[in-house]
C-alpha cells in the first residue's frame, strides 16, 4: 500500500498496482522504494486525487498502463495522431461517464494527470475539452472557457483571414 499526501495535508492510501499508472509515482517507488513515509503531492487536492484514484482503480487490470509508453522516433507526428485515435477507440463507458464533470474539475484533472504523468487520463480529459470546443465560434469558446481577448483589432483580423479556409 502506498500513502499519498494531498495539497490540504490529508493522507490517502492506495494499492501500489493501482497508483503505478502514474509515471511520476512509479519512478519514485522504483528509486526510493515503498515506505511508511507518505509521498507529498502538493499540487493535487483531495477531491481531485480521489477522482484520479477512482479512474486508476477502474483501469488497474490494464498492465500496459503501468509501463512507460513506447515512443518510436520515426514518423513521430504520424504516430501521435494514430496514438490519439487508438486512445479514443479504447475509451469505455466508464471513461465517458468519468468526464461528465464541471469545467473547473476537468481542468484540475488535466493539471493533475500531467503532474502525475498519467497519459491515458490526460488524453481522455484533453479529448473531452476538444469536444467541448467543437462547433463553437471564437466568441462562444471565449465565453465557455472564460478566455480574455488579448488580440488588437488588426491581429484579430489577420488571424481570422489566415484561418478563413477552415470556416467554410
Amino acid at each position, binding site marked *: 500500500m502506498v500513502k499519498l499526501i494531498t495539497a490540504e495535508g490529508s493522507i490517502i492510501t492506495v494499492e501500489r498496482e493501482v497508483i503505478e499508472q502514474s509515471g511520476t509515482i512509479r519512478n519514485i517507488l522504483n528509486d*526510493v522504494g515503498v515506505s511508511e513515509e507518505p509521498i507529498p503531492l502538493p499540487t493535487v487536492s483531495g477531491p481531485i486525487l480521489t477522482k484520479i484514484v477512482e479512474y486508476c482503480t477502474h483501469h488497474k487490470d490494464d498492465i500496459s498502463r503501468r509501463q512507460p509508453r513506447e515512443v518510436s522516433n520515426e514518423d513521430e507526428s504520424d504516430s501521435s495522431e494514430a496514438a490519439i485515435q487508438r486512445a479514443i477507440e479504447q475509451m469505455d463507458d466508464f471513461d465517458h461517464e468519468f468526464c461528465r464533470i464541471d469545467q473547473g474539475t476537468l481542468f484540475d484533472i488535466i493539471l493533475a494527470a500531467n503532474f502525475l504523468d498519467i497519459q491515458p487520463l490526460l488524453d481522455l480529459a484533453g479529448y473531452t475539452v476538444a469536444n467541448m470546443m467543437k462547433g463553437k465560434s471564437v466568441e462562444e469558446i471565449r465565453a465557455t472557457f472564460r478566455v480574455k481577448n488579448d488580440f488588437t483589432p488588426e491581429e484579430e483580423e489577420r488571424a481570422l483571414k489566415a484561418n478563413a479556409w477552415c470556416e467554410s
Partner: protein
Amino acid sequence: MSADSSEKRKEGLSHKEAGNRYFKANEFSKALKEYHYALLHLRGLNSDAMNVAKPRDPETMTEDEVTEQDKELSAISSNIAACHMRLQRYDRVVFCANEALKTNPFNKKAKFRLAQGYVREGALGKASKLLDELEKDSPNDQGFAAERRNIELKEKQAEEKQRKEFAGMFDRSK
C-alpha cells in the same frame, strides 16, 4: 506568486539542498529521495490547463524559451541521473537524463550524463554523437575526453570479442 506557491517553492528548494548535502556525503539513496521530493514541490507551480495541453517541443525550443524554473527542474533531474550513475543503475541514468533534457534541451550536464549512461548501456553510437556536440562547445574538457577514451576502449573490446568469435569460421568447414 501566491503565498501558497512560495511556501511550496521554499519546501522544494530545501529538499533540493538536502539532496545536495546527501550527495556530497555519498549517501545516494537518501539524496535520490530528497531530489524527488524537491521535484514534487517545484513542478506544476506555474501551470495552467491551456499550456499543459500544448507542451513545447524540445527539438525546436530556443534557448531563451527556457525559463529559470525549467533550468532548476532540469538541474534536479540531472542530479537524480547523477545519483543513479553512482548507484550503477544505468538504465535509470538514461531515463532521468532524457527527462532533464526534455525540460531544458540546453542542459550540458544532463547531456553528458546521458552520454555516460549510453556508454555503460552499450549504445556507443548514441554516446559518440552526444560527445561530438559537447566537444564542439568545450573541446578541452577532461570529463568529455575521459568518456571518449571509454568509448574507444569498449569499441576495441567489442572488436576483439567479434574477432575471437569468428576466428577460423571459414576453416570449420574443412
